[in-house]
């Protein structure tokens, strides 16, 4: 019985943490490197112009389904003339900016 109580405490803790992180108003205030995505494969395309700007969906060039802006990456590789996306792609939802 004692063990089940510990299990239920873990469940309550996990649900509280999850609700807090899921329903908290989330604003991605950082800036990202924006890349156009291939319309067929979804892979980021190489670009000669590096765009580094805040995660504001009003500047979004690549709208995905369900109101998500795609193509914001945390890093890049390459030098002038041929930049490639690197790091993690961040999902940005239009509702984040009223």
């Amino acid at each position: 019985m004692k063990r089940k109580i510990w299990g239920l405490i873990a469940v309550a803790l996990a649900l509280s943490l999850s609700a807090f992180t899921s329903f908290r108003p989330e604003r991605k205030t950082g800036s990202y490197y924006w890349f156009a995505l291939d319309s067929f494969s979804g892979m980021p395309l190489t670009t000669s112009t590096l765009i580094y700007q805040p995660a504001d969906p009003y500047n979004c060039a690549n709208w995905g389904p369900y109101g998500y802006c795609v193509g914001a990456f945390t890093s890049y590789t390459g030098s002038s003339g041929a930049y490639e996306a690197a790091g993690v792609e961040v999902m940005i939802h239009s509702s984040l900016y009223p």
Partner: protein
Amino acid sequence: MSVRTIKGLPSLKEFITKKKNSIAEVCAFSLILLFVYAASSKLFRWHLFRFQLESYPWIRHFAGWVVWGVPALELAIAVLLISGKERLKGFYLSSVLLVVFTAYLLVMLRTQHHLPCSCGGVIQGMTWGQHIVFNLFFILFSITGGLCQRQQQASGSSIFFSSP
């Protein structure tokens, strides 16, 4: 032969034997926390989870199933870990799920660069490399917990089998 490196201190094997119940408890607690957190984060923001799955190679064709199947499996594992008699199955299933997910990540990172993070809540802030280390840590927890639980059940010291 008794192995004692420092006089008065028990060996690692003795320590594990004595503390196996506590080790299994800590592992189960951590895994329940992980799976319930992961499942509820996905369900609370299922539209985001589905969108991310649809952008994943291979999985995108089954996104409709995976979006409900993965949280359901995670919750089922948590239930098994809470229930005394089925806890060993919970440890086994949790090892399998984490190994499959980590293997998928490793293969995808070797072959693809476009892999948006489908992880929820605080885990979303991790890079894929950090996520793999995180998974390996919990795989270790699952295996250790499973071994301790199996020894515990074999020796019949578990309260689940000694009392009604």
